[in-house]
């Protein structure tokens, strides 16, 4: 039984990257763009008005670049990138366009929530695009023109539709070596707790 629980826990950890997690840790290697001026484009747009209400909350944004003042904000958006930025899907287009001088890396956490899923068939997509100052795409998946696209389906299922090579993505913060030890210990505790309940 313990083996099964441990196996299941590891499976969740290993598979969470692809689909079901609603929290994502994003790291973009912009070292090839360092010093270049351009734009960061965060969007969270529904397929249509039938998509269930949803939000994408960006927090812990950090970079070695420089944010320019006066971002261009459209639609259902609140907060700010240097604190907590929430993009809702209440409008056709919901975006935060941030003037930016690129450094070597960008990282942030995004929580995507679909509190009341439905069966409309319509999802909402969170995206990050990087442009130069003339809005030419940078570090983009060629099919989407964006560096990262995560879709929240009508049922709340998350799917990564586009991820440029420079983007690394995980469902949890990248663990430090001591954190890995804590994780294993935690798994042991989970197994112990289940064993106790079974008894």
């Amino acid at each position, binding site marked *: 039984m313990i083996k099964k629980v441990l196996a299941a826990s590891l499976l969740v950890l290993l598979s969470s990257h692809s689909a079901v997690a609603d929290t994502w840790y994003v790291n973009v290697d912009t070292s090839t763009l360092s010093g270049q001026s351009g*734009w960061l*484009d965060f*969007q*969270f*747009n*529904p*397929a*249509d*008005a039938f*998509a269930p209400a949803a939000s994408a909350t960006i927090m812990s944004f950090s970079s070695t670049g420089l944010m320019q003042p006066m971002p261009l904000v459209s639609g259902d958006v609140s907060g700010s990138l240097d604190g907590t930025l929430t993009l809702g*899907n209440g409008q*056709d*287009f919901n*975006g935060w*366009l941030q003037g930016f001088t690129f450094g070597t890396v960008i990282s942030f956490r995004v929580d995507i929530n679909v509190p009341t899923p439905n069966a409309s*068939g*319509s*999802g*909402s*997509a*969170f*995206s990050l*695009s990087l*442009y130069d100052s*003339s*809005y*030419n*795409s940078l570090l983009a998946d060629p*099919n*989407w*023109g*964006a560096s990262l*696209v995560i*879709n*929240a*389906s*009508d049922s709340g299922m998350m*799917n990564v*539709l*586009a991820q440029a090579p420079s983007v690394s993505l995980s469902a949890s913060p990248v663990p430090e070596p001591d954190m890995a030890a804590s994780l294993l210990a935690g798994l042991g505790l989970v197994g112990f707790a289940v064993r106790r309940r079974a008894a």
Partner: protein
Amino acid sequence: MNNNIGLITVQLIAALFSAQAGAVTLTFIENNDLHAHLTPHLDKVVKNGQTVYESRGGLARVATLVKQIRAENPNTVLMNVGDTYHGGVEALYTLGNAVVDPLNALGVDVGVPGNWDFAYGPNVLRLRYVDTLTTTQKNLLQRTVSIAIKKPNFPNIAANMQSTAGANSGGLLLPGTLTKTVGGVKVGFIGLTSDIVAQMDTMLAAGLSFTQGEAAYRDLVNTQAQTLRNQGAKLVMVMSELGLQKDYRLADVINSGAVDVFFSAHTHDTIFAPLKTKSGALVVEAGHDGWLGRMDVDIVSGQAPVFNWTLLPVDSSIPDDPAMKTLVDAARAPFLVANPNMTVPMSGMTLKLTQPIDTVLGHAYAPLDREDALESTFNNAWTDTLRQQTGTAIALTPGFRMDGPTPALGTVYEDNHIADGALTIEDVYRYIPVPYTIGTGTVQASTIKSIIESDLTAVYSLNSFAQAGGWLNGWSGLNINVDLSQPDGRRVQSIRYADGTPMADADTLSATGCLRPTDTADGSGTVLCSFAGFSNVASLINPATGNPWYPQELFSTALSQGWLADGARRNIADAAATPAWPDQPFVQPLAVRVTAGAKLSKSGLVYNAGTKIYTAQITLANTGGVPLQAPLKVVLEGLPASVTVVNAAGSYYSQPYLKLNGSLAPGSSQSVQVQFKKTSGSITYSPAAYTGGV
């Protein structure tokens, strides 16, 4: 004189320049599915999005058009493809002879027989088409036919029809190919006649066999095309009575570059823009006798030929060619006398013509036609009339395409004519040009269900080679629910009787239908309307003649006495709501909307500030228990005019679509990306899955 010298000089210079450049334009005229229509008749056509009645067809108009085209370009080839000598009253009472003199005067270069050209029997077929008969053979055959059979004065070809009897057993009955040098260019023609002759009646295919199946046709066309190319053919044209669906499939699977153009016939599809295929061959079809197809081919030495296709309406704007009109009038004259006093000249036939064929028998107070593949007003009116006469539980009639659309009395049509709804003897034979008789029998309900299911396969199968090219049979006494998006054998959803009672498999029904000359009709027969599984089949006797009752007789009586049923009812419902002509771009439905067992979902939109393109992903999941069969497409329905799809693969019913790859197994899914641009408003659309089609 000086002017003449100048003109000749200019012509010589032009000819020299043309020769030096190695440039020439060849014109191929496709005249398909004449159906023995010598004179103009009303037809339903789509103009500016509206379905209207127009005067169409008539060989005197066709002759004018052909002469115009030949005057424009002497390097012209006239092809006669498909049903030619059958389909009208003059043809039936002369076994097709009435068509021969006018058609021969048209100057046809090459022809291919259609399935209905076999309908007068195997001996008439040989007398008409085979040019290699010995005098003895000809005399022996002619002894079995009561009138002398006239022959076309142009070669007919059929590479898919083998002789199975006599000294030529194993060989082709007609030459399979023809080469012709036009404008200095050698052109090869491959003929493919109908391969459903034995399904019409095995007697009609006596001593013959026909190539069957996709692989056999692929190999046949590849081999013949290669032979023609080896003989120096610069162009290879296929003239085919297989029908658009089979030809389109065939053009996809043959060798790349083997064939240049398939000139299709049989299915009467009006192809305004050539269909492109994987082999590079174009596929076209010029409707039926209301149209002429024109394919101009520009050939420049060292360059790929350039093809330009135009469909020319044979309408009232085309003046009659006087010489052809004289020939047509002569062919029809015996049918316009007070009492033609003719009997169909086939063994055992008692169907007679005793009034001029322009005699008005009665009037249609509701439109009559066979213009809908699933259920037509004529078939409804006719089967209801049969049941009124016989009192059987159900009636059925064959799914012919042949008709002469009749607007209801009072309908305003071309040039503000007001239709009087008149139906003449000639019209009766346009709807029913075959000498079958009416019969009754009994049948189990389970057999009826199987018949309808097999019929649906023959009309709607995604396997083109399972299609026969006709419409669904007409039915009376049944309410039939179908789902055309389902695979072969699963399309019938439920059947109820006219009173709403569900039909149970074990029920025994009485039925009225049709009998071919070879069917047993003495009360012990088992075949009705060519379907096996009936019992107690017997001829219905016409009390006026004491002979088996012909449908033309009953139709005429019902019209003249005013009790022809109104065919406006709708008793076949399709859950997939598959549009029929004229909403469909093709007469034959080629794609069906998937309504069950599929879920479509769409992602949110991503906007690119540089390209100003919105991108999304559409996913089709097969949630049912059967595969969704290729080709699959996602049609974007309800898209506002302010939004365009940048990466559309094409448009369907004026709505953009995207293609998926292959079939979709149960439980699997496939995604396709869609890109939009908009000028204003929201991007709203409903994705719909379609299976089958072009």
